[in-house]
């Protein structure tokens, strides 16, 4: 396990309210917690508990209605769209349940996307993309393929490679095994554990206890609030079960 050090993320009483006409829905009802560099945590909760909303807030994809979010001690709640895009590009890597790879692009181009946004020339991007793919257990033969020519597990590893290619501070994974069979889920979780051992901060949103038990801390979310923090049982981690 890596050394746990300073805070990467801190949420202070974050509230998210959705308004559709006169209907008001609470996504988050005052969430406060922090994540330290090198941590691997999971957020669990039933459907509608606010897991994805919380991940969107941490990932700067959405703005809180109230409260503050600090990323590397910077208050990001009031930053412009452009500044948020800059931080997402440099400090955050996303992994989605649906992989969200672009099928008309090759695997290589998909992994390169964050570097394209950064304006890095192709000859510098390619070695970084190849390194990222190999570090998640991918194969060079995938590079010229289209994502839909790969299995689900392989696609998710490509998505993880895309998330880490820009050397982000933190990886946010939203139900990363939700679309995978058990064998592929194991591989994906092994990949996350390996990255975490190398010092990568990772937050995983899941409803699967076997996934949550692979992390170092489980936050339970209910009705838009943190209902508790649970220590995982590593023996029930998907990697250690039959």
């Amino acid at each position, binding site marked *: 396990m890596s050394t746990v050090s300073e805070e990467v993320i801190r949420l202070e009483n974050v509230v998210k309210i959705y308004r559709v006409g006169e209907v008001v829905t609470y996504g988050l009802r005052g969430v406060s917690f922090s994540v330290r560099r090198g941590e691997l945590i999971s957020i669990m909760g039933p459907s509608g508990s606010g897991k994805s909303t919380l991940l*969107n807030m941490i*990932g700067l*994809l*959405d703005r809180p209605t109230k409260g503050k979010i600090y990323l590397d001690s910077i208050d990001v709640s009031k930053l412009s*769209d*452009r500044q948020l*895009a*800059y931080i*997402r*590009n*440099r400090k955050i890597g*996303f992994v*989605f349940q649906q992989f*969200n790879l*672009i099928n*008309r*692009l090759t695997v290589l*181009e998909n992994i390169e*996307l*964050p570097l*394209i*946004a*950064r*304006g*890095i*020339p*192709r000859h510098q991007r390619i070695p970084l993309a190849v390194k990222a793919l190999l570090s998640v257990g991918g194969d060079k033969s995938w590079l010229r393929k289209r994502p839909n020519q790969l299995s689900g597990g392989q696609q998710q590893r490509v998505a993880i490679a*895309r998330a880490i290619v*820009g050397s982000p501070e933190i990886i946010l994974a939203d139900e990363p095994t939700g679309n995978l069979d058990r064998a592929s889920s194991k591989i994906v979780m092994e990949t996350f554990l390996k990255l975490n051992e190398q010092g990568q901060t990772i937050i995983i949103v899941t409803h699967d206890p076997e996934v949550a038990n692979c992390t170092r801390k489980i936050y339970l979310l209910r009705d838009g609030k943190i209902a508790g923090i649970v220590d995982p049982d590593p023996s029930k981690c998907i990697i250690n079960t039959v």
Partner: protein
Amino acid sequence: MNITFLFDALRLALKALTERRLRAILTIIGIAIGPIALVTMSSVVRGYSNYVTSQLEALGQNLIVVQSTGNYRLSEDDVDALKKIPGVKRVEPYYMIKATIKIGAENEDIIAYAVPIDLIFEAMSGLKILEGSIPSQTEIIKVVIGYDIAFDENGNQVYYVGDTITLTIYKVEEGGKVSIKRVNVLVAGILDKFGGAFFLSPDRTVFLSPDAGKKLLGLKDWSGILVLASNSKLVLPIEQEIREMYHGNVDVISFQGIAKVINSITGAMDFITFSTSLAAFAVAIAGVAATMITSVIERIREIGVMKAVGFTNNQVLFMILAESLVMSIIGGGIGITLGVIGAYILASKGFTIKAGTTTVVISAPPAITPELILNTIGIVVLVGIIGGIFPAYRAAKIPPAVALRYE
């Protein structure tokens, strides 16, 4: 956004278009119609305009023709009055009548022009004697004939210097009776080929001395008076002064004035062509917008992913705009190419003007100028920008969390 990103955006735009090939091709066809219409029509109209203008200029930049209208009879008094106008170099009355002449096996219509021939040479700089010489004004039976009279359509010479030719003149007398007059004249000189002159064709003209008009052709009244200005810049003021002198009793024609009128007509035609093409461009804008809106809707989730990995709103806007720009540039390229081909095909048919029995065929290459091509490219780029800007703006403004949830 740096240069690397711009190139990457264009490359990704091309990939996106190849994915939706049929839709892109149909949109490109829609875009190409405007440039085809604009390049074809504008270049042909401008080509004809240039041709007519150059022909008129060759006919005499300094020449003004005064012809009587109605009952007004031109006389020596008019010649004296015209000579007094400042800037007038020379004033000569002339006779002109239509005649027929046998050229090879055919009887063909020609124009008999009784005028001091040296004046014609002075006014029309391109005119040259091919054979023989210009007869003196006292040698009334000696004439100079145009190239197309001396040579038949196959290029065989049918009249030589020293030959006698017969001019047949049909005249409608008072009471409607038609009289036929045959006049034999002697060829003293043959003109070199002048080319397809527009109003007056020296190639199909017999030039006689002024006295021959009265004595040989039997013409009583002058057909008109030729006024030669000392400087081409004085032509229009002199023309204006003559008009004011005669209050509509004479027609005053200068080739420069006609050129000006034709230029204004072709300018108007050019404007109409341009306006018509704009309609095609407007349709193209709608086509591009429809294609790009559909494309954006289909890719909202993809746009969400791009934003999640750090693309800024401006980068997303440029990427979508790059697609419409690539389509419009390809469409423009195809349209301009087809427009150039179409212009050459259209111009090769020629443009026929029929006035009574006279038929003039204008055949001129299309005027494909860098200005026309650059303007067309400019409009086509605008089509891409205008058609793509709204969908691109919409894509750029989608909140990333909303885009990622989009099904």
